[in-house]
């Protein structure tokens, strides 16, 4: 009898699938997104039009793609403030390379290489030399934007050489069922990120490092290489977003992506990533980005002064984390 109860206890699941979902911040933010969409479809004529939805989904992508990379960094307990500038620098490298007459492959390769080098630089300083992530990436925020200005001589780049049209359709087209291309890239990248986090040893180690870095080291997790990798992935996501955004906008200025890092961090945090590390999901990053974009979009449609935008987005950040706090209080009681 005693053995069978032990068996039962060990075999028991702590919580059902449903209560797990109901307890997650991501789920409630998702509900908020859906509720806002339903409300807006009734409250305004312009919201549920295909043109507006096309705009929203496309606008979401740039923040969402970077938020995927940022989520990995945040799960390890780090932060990457350089993504906005890295996006700008990668766009500029792409633009300048193509403007000089090289093909799109060369441009994209140069752009991605730039992102990976910056990510590796951040990562090595943080993981191997023990620099605080905040400081390193704050420095890189300044360096990368300055390099973008140097690369372009602070001019606007809008002619992209022989593959000009291809680049523009890559970012601005809709090759598949009328869905904007950037949205497709976002979905593919989100699926990859989600898979990696849940099903690979790398993903498991990312969570372990955020949960208890010391424990991860003691149990033989290659903590330092993994930290370098997450900063490379974060910079890569910014680089990819930069390439897509270049194609969409058709022009690059040196203030591209200014202040974007805060939106990206906000998206990740609203989606449930915990800045203390150890918690976060790919779905959360997308949903957080969606909520921010819907707030922005709806304020315009509802005729509310755009100056209020910051207040609403800021409140969303605080509210989302408030739910998390309330849940923790209940558990500790």
């Amino acid at each position, binding site marked *: 009898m005693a053995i069978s109860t*032990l068996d039962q206890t060990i*075999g*028991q699941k702590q919580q059902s699938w449903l209560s797990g979902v109901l307890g997650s911040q991501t789920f409630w933010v998702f509900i908020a997104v859906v509720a806002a969409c339903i409300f807006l479809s009734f409250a305004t004529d312009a919201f549920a039009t295909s043109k507006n939805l096309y705009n929203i989904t496309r606008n979401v992508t740039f923040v969402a793609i970077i938020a995927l990379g940022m989520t990995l960094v945040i799960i390890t307990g780090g932060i990457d403030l350089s993504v906005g500038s890295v996006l700008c620098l990668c766009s500029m490298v792409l633009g300048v390379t193509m403007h000089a007459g090289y093909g799109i492959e060369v441009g994209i390769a140069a752009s991605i290489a730039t992102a990976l080098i910056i990510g590796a630089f951040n990562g090595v300083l943080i993981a191997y030399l023990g620099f605080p992530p905040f400081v390193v990436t704050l420095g890189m925020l300044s360096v990368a934007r300055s390099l973008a200005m140097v690369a372009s001589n602070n001019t606007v780049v809008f002619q992209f050489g022989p593959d000009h049209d291809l680049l523009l359709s890559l970012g601005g087209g809709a090759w598949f069922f009328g869905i904007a291309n950037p949205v497709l890239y976002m979905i593919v990248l989100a699926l990859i990120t989600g898979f990696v986090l849940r*099903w690979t040893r790398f993903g*498991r180690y990312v969570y372990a490092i955020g*949960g*208890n870095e010391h*424990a*991860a080291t003691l149990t*033989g997790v290659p903590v330092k290489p993994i930290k370098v990798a997450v900063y490379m992935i974060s910079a890569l996501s910014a680089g990819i977003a930069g390439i897509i955004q270049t194609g969409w906008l058709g022009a690059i200025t040196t203030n591209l992506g200014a202040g974007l890092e805060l939106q990206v961090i906000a998206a990740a945090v609203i989606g449930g990533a915990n800045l203390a590390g150890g918690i976060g999901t790919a779905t959360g990053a997308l949903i957080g980005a969606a909520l921010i974009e819907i707030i922005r979009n709806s304020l315009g449609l509802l005729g509310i002064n755009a100056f209020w935008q910051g207040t609403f987005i800021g409140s969303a950040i605080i509210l989302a984390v408030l739910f998390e706090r309330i849940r923790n209080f209940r558990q500790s009681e």
Partner: protein
Amino acid sequence: MAVLELSNISKHFGAIQAVNDVSLSIEPGEVVGLMGDNGAGKSTLVKMIAGNFRPSEGTMKMDGAELILHKPVEARRHGIEIVHQDLALCNNLTAAANVFLGRELRRGFGPFAVLDYATMYRRAGELFKELKSETRPRDLVKKMSGGQRQAVAIARTRLSNAKIVLMDEPTAAISVRQVAEVLSLIHRLRDQGIAVVLISHRMPDVFSVADRVIVLRRGRKVADKKIASSSPEEVTGLITGAIEQV
């Protein structure tokens, strides 16, 4: 034959002599209490066996073969498992994930190998059953009691064919009921022929589970005797220096 044998091990950090000419041997299935005051050299000694430090002098032998460790991971490869004082657990992961941390099971092959959740849950469940601990593999460690957390840390040592388990203050920060749980976990390890080195401050724990007690003072071994032929009073005297050496 002794599973682990230390001969004339010394370790100094600059001018500080942390461990001085210590020799000891541990038999399979033996529980040895390693005692001493703060700064007596217990941690340094354990860290040498765990591969964190290399001895300045002396040799270590495992099953008769010389043992040279450069990294903690190598100790594990030789069948030395450590239960750290802080348990080295990740609160945000499940019990099973913690048990397999650093040694995840995967299925598929090459770059397509994915984590094998089902097998890890099942194996972790079996280990908890073997340890007679009411610990659920799918629970987050964050929500567990001190005894369950110990069970998770100890279950780790059962993944490989450990020959010797070093436990650093396993009963320092848990309730009385949980102490009993941990001590019975130590018995389970011993019953399977695993040698256990129990580093502890708590006299009752050592006297209830250990077969032998080794006392260090100021880096030197001052006693190494059967529990049956010693007493808490004597060991206290040895730790404090009231009794010089036996």
